[in-house]
Each structure stands twice: as C-alpha cells, then as structure tokens.
C-alpha cells in the first residue's frame, strides 16, 4: 500500500536536496573561487507489474518517482577582483593549483589566497604547502608573479633596489573531466578515476595533446570570486518550491484516497 506514496515522497525528498544545495551555494557566495553545485534529476527505474491472466498489464510503470541523479559543479569562471595583496593569485582560465594535504595526498584548488608560513613556504589559506614548493626568502621585500607563473622577489630595503631574482615557478594542473573531482572541503578537490589523469604544466602553455586548450595564466594580486549567481539560485529555489508543493499536494490527495479505502466499512 505504501508504494502508492512513493512517487510524491520521492518528489519531496528530491526537491529537499535542491534546497540544501542552494543553501550551500548561497552560503559560499563570498568564498573565493567557490564552484556552484546544481542538482540534476532523473526518473527512477520502472517496475514491471505482472499482468493478470491474459489481460494486458493494467499499469506497466507504477510507483516510480524521481531521484537526484548527480550534483555536478559548474566550472564556469567567477569574476576576478584585484585585491592588491601580492600573495593573492588567481588562474585566468583552465586549471588548478596543487597543494599537499596533511595526509600526503595532493589536493587541487583554484583559491589562490596564499600566505607564507613559519618555514618560509607559500601555503594556502588552509595551511597546506603549494606544489611545486616556493620558498620565500626571509628578507624578501617585494614579490611578483608573472602570468607564466614565474615567481620573482626583490630582497633588501626598497631604496637599495636589489635585482629581481626568480625563486620559483608555479604550475597548473588540468583535468580531462573536472566534474569528476571530489571536494574535500576548504575549496580543495582530490582526483578520482572519473576525473582522469591530470596534466601539469606552465601557465599559458598549450596542454599537450590538446589543440586549443592552455594552462590558465596566473593573475597577480587578484582573487577569483565564487561563480554563484544569486539570480540563478533564486530562480532555482522558486522552481524547487513549486515542485515541492505540487508533490506535497499529490501526497495529500493520495492519502485522502487511501483513507477513503480504509474507511469503506464504517
């Protein structure tokens, strides 16, 4: 009997996932380089009802409903904001910075709000060192990163104007299918077989084997904003709300019908 209620129930549950996702997106609207999530639905596998004797089956696809099929991320670029902080870097185009997690795994992030840790290494906001490592000399006074990822510093007091000296080279990793990456929080992703093997290269270079794809160039003193658009989220929420209430209404009606059947013998 409860199978009657499955379809509207699935409708309610699925729309609930949309509300949760929108809440997540909107709460990250000011998170640097956050990539918005969206919920994609699919109808559920249909159940074959056994026909009665030689009658054609009365209903081939009863029950059913809907389920969230995937919650992909949109990897569309956010917009770039010049912050003026020399340790803020953004990738203008495809790719991720690589960092090393505490457990040794490599994580990928587009959030370039870097800092220098106690050991002089360039680290992410979460404190994980950037790969390949960039060691900033203690007496460095000025810091500059070229679009091709070359990191230069000037040492000593500004008025003495030492020569600029290269201390490192940033690299960018590009995945065949970034949708396959798994978020591990703090704006970081880890690779999965679905994402494919990353190609690592110098910003601005062509990705090997790809005719028209380049590793994204580095923007200096700039951060990328989230790609959450409040107008899109609000529209999605309105649609989810309508879908939710229509499923709630069908649930109510089916309940009324079942109550009617239960009260046949009064």
């Amino acid at each position, binding site marked *: 009997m409860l199978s009657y209620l499955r379809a509207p129930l699935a409708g309610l549950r699925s729309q609930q996932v949309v509300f949760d996702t929108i809440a997540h997106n909107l709460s990250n609207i000011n998170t640097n380089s956050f990539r918005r999530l969206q919920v994609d639905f699919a109808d559920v596998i249909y159940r074959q009802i056994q026909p009665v004797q030689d009658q054609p089956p009365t209903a081939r696809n009863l029950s059913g409903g809907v389920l969230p099929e995937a919650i992909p991320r949109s990897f569309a670029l956010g917009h770039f904001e010049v912050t003026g902080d020399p340790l803020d870097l953004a990738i203008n185009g495809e790719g991720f910075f690589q960092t090393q997690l505490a457990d040794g795994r490599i994580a990928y992030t587009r959030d370039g709000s870097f800092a220098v840790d106690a050991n002089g290494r360039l680290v992410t906001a979460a404190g994980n060192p950037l790969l390949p490592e960039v060691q900033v000399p203690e007496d460095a006074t000025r810091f500059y990163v070229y679009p091709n990822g070359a990191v230069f510093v000037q040492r000593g007091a500004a008025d003495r104007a030492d020569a600029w000296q290269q201390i490192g080279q940033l690299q960018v990793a590009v995945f065949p299918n970034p949708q396959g990456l798994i978020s591990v929080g703090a704006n970081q992703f880890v690779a999965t077989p679905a994402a494919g093997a990353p190609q690592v290269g110098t910003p601005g270079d062509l990705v090997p084997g790809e005719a028209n794809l380049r590793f994204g160039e580095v923007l200096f003193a700039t951060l990328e904003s989230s790609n959450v658009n409040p107008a899109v989220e609000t529209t999605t929420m309105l649609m989810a709300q*309508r879908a939710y209430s229509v499923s709630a209404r069908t649930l109510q009606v089916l309940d009324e019908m079942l109550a009617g059947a239960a009260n*046949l013998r009064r």
Partner: protein
Amino acid sequence: MIRGMYAAAAAMLAQMVRQQVLAHNLANVNTPGYRQDRVSLRQFPLRPISAPDVVPDRPVAVSAAGLPLGQMATGVLADLPSLNLQQGPLRETGEPLDMAIVGPGFFAIQRPDGVFYTRDGRFVRNAEGFVSDEAGGIVLGQDLQPIAIPAGTLHVDAAGMIRADGVVVGQLGVFTFPPDADIEKIGINLLRVTGAPQAADPVLTTVHQGFIEFSNVDVTQSTTEVLAALRSYEASQRLLQMQDQLLERVVGEVGRVG
C-alpha cells in the same frame, strides 16, 4: 448488486493507478528531458444482459434465454500509460556541453547493456575524452560511434556539428523513429526503443548548445487531473458504500417477520 460493487471497486482501483501516474509525472516536473505519461481508462468488455422472462400464470420465472435488454459494462481499468512526446520548454544553462533538441528526435546513449535514447542533453567530457552523459553512458554521433572531443571551447551548431577552433570534431547524433516504434521508459531519463533509428530531419530538428530541455509535464493540467481523479475515486467509493447498505438491507430486512 454484487456486480455493481465490483464495478465500483474497479473504478477505485483505476483512479488509484491514474493518481499514481500523475504523482510520478508531478514528481518529475524538474527532471530534464522527462516525457509525461498519459493514462487512459478503458471499460471492461461489454456483456449482454437479459430481462427476467415474465410468464402470466406464474408470478416470476426466469428462462435461460430471457428478453434481451442490451449490453452492460461491468467496470473500468487503467490502460497502459502512453508517452506524451510534446516539446518541453528550453532553459538556458550556459554550460558548453548542455544540449537541447527542438523538434522530434532523441540523443543515442551507448551503455554496456545496449543503446538507449534520451532527450536529456546534460553531457560532460569523460576522463577518456568522449562525450558522455552524467550516468557514464557514451553519447553516440550521427555515425553511431562515440565522439572524442578536445578540451577547451567548443561550438555546436543547430545540426549538432561540434567544432573546436573551427575544425569539425564530430556530430551529435539525433535520431527519430517510425510512428509505430515501441518506446518504453527504463528510468534515469532513458528510453528503450524497438525500431530502426533514422537520422532526424535537420529542417525539423535542431540542436541548441547551452540549453537543456525541461520536463514537458503540464503542471496545471496534471494538478486538475489529480483533483478530478480524487473526486471520481470518492464517487465510486460512495457508490460502493451505498450498495453495501442495500445489501445489508436485503440480508437483514427482506423476509423479516414481525
């Protein structure tokens, strides 16, 4: 009278089936490419009924072949749901591999268990570089082969031609079927079609990049039908109860002495 009870019960069951199909449609109002199911009701086979053959010298006698009165239907059942293949509304997403079909036709998806068809055009480039759907099925081109695409910016024209930097790298396959083809839903937005696929007519059918086609469920009509099904269920239920009351009288009161 018992026959009437069965007719009322059959009507209740049929309305319940209709309600379930409507609930399923309404649960999928936001499912891209979903095609609405339609329920039609069908009467049970008609059967002839006869009047009791009244003979003057006996109060009531019923002969085997009484006076034919006509035919009577004894109930109703919900028929197989059929698919409404009307165009659904397009929604812009801006995602480069979201495709919508306008006009008749389906995308072909190769899965380990066969080729299936769908109107749900949310595609991605998988780890091997092929166009695939979100469940991992491979999208087939016009030549029924997987389409390998380079990363980076792609342009897809109305005929489904995929270009990277002006160079054609493949063509999305859009297929139509003869009108008598049997189309069956198997879930996850896929349809199983028995029938020979033909390339869709490029005049009638166009592909739109950066859009998805939405579910074609008509919410207004479906909600109205939900109410209609509820009321006709209630009417049948009332009928069943009344017949039950009549039966109760027959059993309890007819022939009672004193």
